[in-house]
């Protein structure tokens, strides 16, 4: 299973090399969406370790979080509020939290 996922990521990276570059104005949106997605992924790993993983929750969370984060950030740009920093900060904190919990769960085993 893990091998399939890694192949998926590598395939995605290769695919990304052929995707046209995003215009400068939307780079921030993409970065926020990326942070949200990464956050969901780490949350998913944590859920697997805790034994309460639900793929429906995970997959819906992946897309909804990413899109919603990008949308919020877009609104922020329109309104002149730098929601971008807030989003990056919040997701960053959560990613670190999740990583810490994953580590502890591993060590406990």
């Amino acid at each position, binding site marked *: 299973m893990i091998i399939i996922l890694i192949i*998926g*990521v590598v395939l995605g990276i290769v695919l*990304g090399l052929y995707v046209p*570059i995003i215009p400068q104005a939307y780079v921030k949106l993409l*970065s926020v969406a990326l942070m949200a997605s990464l956050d969901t*992924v780490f949350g998913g790993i944590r859920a697997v370790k805790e034994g309460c993983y639900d*793929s429906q929750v995970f997959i819906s969370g*992946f897309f909804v979080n990413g899109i919603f984060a990008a949308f919020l950030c877009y609104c922020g740009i329109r309104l002149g509020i730098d929601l971008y920093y807030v989003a990056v900060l919040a997701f960053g904190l959560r990613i670190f939290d999740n990583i810490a919990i994953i580590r502890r769960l591993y060590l406990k085993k």
Partner: protein
Amino acid sequence: MLQGKQAKVLLFIVCVILGTMLSTQFRSAEQARNTIAQERAENLVEKLKAAEKENRIMEEKVKKLEDKSGNETLAKEIQNLKSKAGELPMEGPGIKVTVDDSKVVHKPGENPNLYIIHDDDLLRLINELRAAGAEAICINKERLLDVSEIRCAGPTVSVNNNRFSPPYVIVAIGKPETLESALKLRGGVIETLKFWGISVEVEKSDKLTVPAFKGTRHYEFAKPQIKAEEGETK
């Protein structure tokens, strides 16, 4: 809850999307870094072009105003002063000296600096030409005036704050024979340079042109002394 196979496929898609986002973001960030440098260069080029255009317009204005003034003696005086200040291109008989780095393959262990032209070689040439009565001199189309420097700038030589690399072409207006013999004196500049294999070609000509001084000059510290005060110079 989704069934096993479906969930796997969806997870795979999620991973592909994640990877795509990662590499796209990476490339966009990379490009952003490049475009900033490029934009700056483009901006500067545009500014330079605008400044040059403005310069041209101003020059034309000056010319028009000078023509308008109409006073013939005044115009003549201006012409005279301008030619003395080096702001007019000059032509006349003179010599053209082409100096190039040595083509001699230097022996190992020897200082390669001896085989290339330095600012002081050019300075000596210029000095010799001036001593021989050259009236207007330029190096690589850069007019030499009292404010012009000839200075070592890394592998190049800076004249009037413009950098030049060999070969250097010096054009001097004056009596061709005098200028030539001043350079070709026994034990003179050319002989010394030839010793190191530096090629110096002297060409006499009846009609040479020396361009006008392109830079600007203004006095920040020096002011003309209006009243001649006696005793001050002592």
